[in-house]
């Protein structure tokens, strides 16, 4: 029921999908780059290897040239053509040209380059072919000039070698790509595993389990878990406040209300007007107590709630003390007690929630007024980096044995006294904790009793 009503978080793609796509993209771009490089490399490697064979054969033929009575004699070594036969399927064409450009031997149809290039491309027998030209100079009495040897070969073997080199390179690249993809998938899975652990932790929880998430997570998502845990803690605290309020209310209010009803029934049955009037007086007295108790219960819940929800701000404790005293003075319209202030000259700054602090201070004053003896002094002090606000009276205060438990609810008498629900110090304690401070109870002298809140202060300069 709750689940259906809960707003679903918007899903903006999958983390795993994004990672995988990123890796695939990197691999694809890399693969294409390597493929292009492999193609170029394959071509140039094949070109170079076969060009060497070609020029080797041409040099052998050029080396075989001799002169006999002014005539160039070409005695082609068979090894030159055997060299060319290393490209097993390629056609061979050759020509030896004299100084005048006339064919000495070979193919008349061989293409001759126009420029000075050593290697050039052409066509032979309707197939693309690669040609090399080697020039041999003769400086003899009978023959002065140069003889050109041109050899061409079709390019089938070159293309095949280039394809083979490229293909092998691509196979290697593909294999590496597949392996890398596999490793990447493992890496992604391993990286995302902590998220799964958190998910399982939540899935396995009972609906009442609001303990912090306790799983091993890497640094990158520890802050997420930390935030989550703070969030859970806040919910837990607020639920506790609610529970406490309900429990306290049901426990603490039942008895006084029952008593009140009993008195009221008594009053309705009483015929004697004087006694009836006394009973009404008691009813009034009990109603006042009940009202105070309700106030305190609600205040306690409110303050604990505020501690989680309200941002702390820099404030001066002297202002808090003054405000608390002013509010007390108002409520005690009859002016039966006189509360005095003991404030330093300089401001005492700390971070806090003014409302909670004023409420806590009022509670202390009320306690002092109800249980202690005048004069009641509200004081603010500064000790180094600590700030302190408290109330001193001159009564006996709480017995020392109970100091340790003073911050808990209803310890004093596990019920409702005539004048207080016993929540006063619990509220003070809660406020002190919510501000990162503590509640101190002291007896500075025989005739004095002091309850104060010790808070981390901030230096004035920092404000």
């Amino acid at each position, binding site marked *: 029921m709750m689940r259906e009503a809960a707003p679903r978080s918007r899903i903006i793609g999958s983390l795993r999908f994004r990672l995988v796509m990123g890796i695939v993209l990197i691999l694809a771009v890399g693969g294409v780059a390597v493929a292009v490089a492999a193609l170029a490399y394959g071509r140039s490697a094949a070109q170079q290897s076969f060009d060497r064979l070609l020029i080797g054969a041409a040099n052998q033929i050029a080396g075989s040239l001799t002169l006999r009575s002014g005539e160039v*004699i*070409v*005695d*082609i*070594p*068979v090894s*030159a*053509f*055997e060299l*060319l*036969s290393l490209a*097993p*399927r*390629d*056609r*061979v*064409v050759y020509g*030896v040209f004299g100084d005048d450009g006339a064919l*000495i*031997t*070979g193919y008349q149809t061989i293409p001759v380059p126009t420029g000075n290039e050593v290697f050039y491309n052409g066509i*032979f*027998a*309707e*197939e693309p072919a690669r040609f090399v030209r080697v020039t041999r100079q003769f400086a003899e009495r009978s023959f002065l000039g140069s003889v050109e040897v041109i050899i061409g070969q079709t390019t089938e073997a070159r293309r095949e070698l280039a394809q083979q080199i490229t293909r092998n390179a691509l196979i290697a690249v593909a294999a590496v790509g597949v392996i890398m993809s596999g490793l990447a998938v493992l890496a992604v899975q391993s990286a995302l595993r902590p998220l799964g652990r958190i998910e399982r932790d939540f899935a396995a929880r009972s609906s009442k389990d609001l303990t912090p998430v306790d799983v091993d997570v890497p640094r990158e998502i520890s802050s997420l878990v930390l935030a989550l845990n703070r969030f859970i803690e806040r919910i837990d605290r607020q639920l506790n406040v609610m529970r406490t309020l309900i429990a306290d209310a049901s426990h603490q209010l039942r008895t006084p209300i029952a008593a009140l009803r009993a008195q009221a029934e008594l009053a309705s049955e009483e015929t004697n007007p004087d006694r009836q009037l006394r009973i009404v007086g008691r009813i009034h007295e009990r109603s006042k107590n009940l009202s105070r108790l309700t106030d305190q219960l609600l205040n306690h819940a409110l303050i604990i709630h505020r501690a989680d929800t309200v941002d702390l701000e820099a404030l001066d404790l002297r202002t808090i003390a003054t405000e608390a005293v002013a509010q007390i003075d108002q409520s005690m319209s009859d002016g039966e007690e006189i509360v005095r202030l003991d404030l330093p000259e300089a401001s005492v700054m700390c971070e806090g929630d003014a409302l909670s602090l004023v409420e806590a201070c009022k509670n202390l004053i009320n306690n002092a007024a109800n249980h202690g003896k005048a004069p009641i002094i509200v004081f603010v002090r500064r000790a180094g980096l600590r700030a302190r606000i408290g109330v001193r009276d001159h009564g006996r205060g709480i017995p020392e044995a109970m100091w340790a438990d003073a911050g808990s609810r209803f310890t004093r008498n596990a019920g409702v006294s005539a004048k207080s629900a016993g929540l006063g110090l619990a509220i003070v304690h809660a406020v002190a904790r919510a501000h990162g401070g503590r509640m101190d109870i002291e007896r500075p002298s025989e005739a004095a009793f002091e309850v104060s809140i010790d808070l981390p202060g901030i230096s004035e300069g920092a404000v």
Partner: protein
Amino acid sequence: MSRAAISLGLATFATAAFAEPMPEAVKSYGPAEAETSVLVRGTTDIELFEPVLLEFTEGSGDVRIVYEQWGSNDLYLASETDCRTGGATADLVISSSIDQQVKLANDGCAAPHRSDETTALPAVSNWRDEVFGTTLEPAVIVYNKALVADAEAPRSRFDLIDLLRPEDSRFRGRVATYDIEASGLGYMFAFADAQQATTFGSLIEAFGRSGAVATCCSSTIIDGVASGEFLIAYNVLGSYALARAQENADIVVVAPNDYTLVLSRAALIPKRAAEPEIGGALIDFLLSDAGRAALRAANLIVETGGGAQPALRLPENPDISLRPIPLSPALLVGLDQHKRAEFIARWRATFPKDVGDAELP
């Protein structure tokens, strides 16, 4: 008589070189009314090749085969002209001048053909899927055992040189070999010999010194051995020699021990063949088991293993000695004008031209 035979051979060659290239003989096989007719040109003698063609036409149904027997140079010239001018051409050319066949393929005059049979060929018998080696014919030494005792008979080139060395050797003037100027095949064998070993130099020197006879044509040479005019013939095509040995028990064929060149007649489909599929089918047949059996029966594949003919003296170590001439562009070197002129000049220098030369018209 020998002089006459030689001059006749040379004269024939000289006439053929100047005249329009023409087939030496023509014969047809298969049904006369067949729709498809293919033209096969070859250098193989008709009577030798006939059984092979007959077996092919029997298995291939409605195909008529016209077989033209050509001289190797004429066949090359005709094929080359057909290729260049785009004229009507044969559907299959099978020549013993494998260098010329390789040149035709190199110059783009052959159509490729691929089949299970051609891919199964070793690299030396298949160039570019255009030229295929179909036969196995060793270049052999032939002698007449009625005139030469087996113990005396040469088993290698070294033996032959030794036989010719003595001044009073009875082999002087009675050893015959191809005239490499007249015979394309003889030139190719001699050229291959020159690549194989330095023995060749000593051999032609011995030939020159002893007045060996250089003449044309396998049949002339083998006839001479049979008749006793020649005692020994060198570098004769084994297929022809063995065919003759089947008729004449005196003929003994020696595959030389030092090395034996093995020729594989090269078949190619001309680029402009009208029926290249049937040309290819004939190639596949020649390479198939049935075709090989037919070629073996015709002595065109010379058995060098267990089933070798009794007249054939095999080398001691056939695996090393038998050397196929590979179909490769290296064969083009021998066809180079300068190279050929140089080689023939070198041959001529040590092996002076026969007196028969003077009788040329």
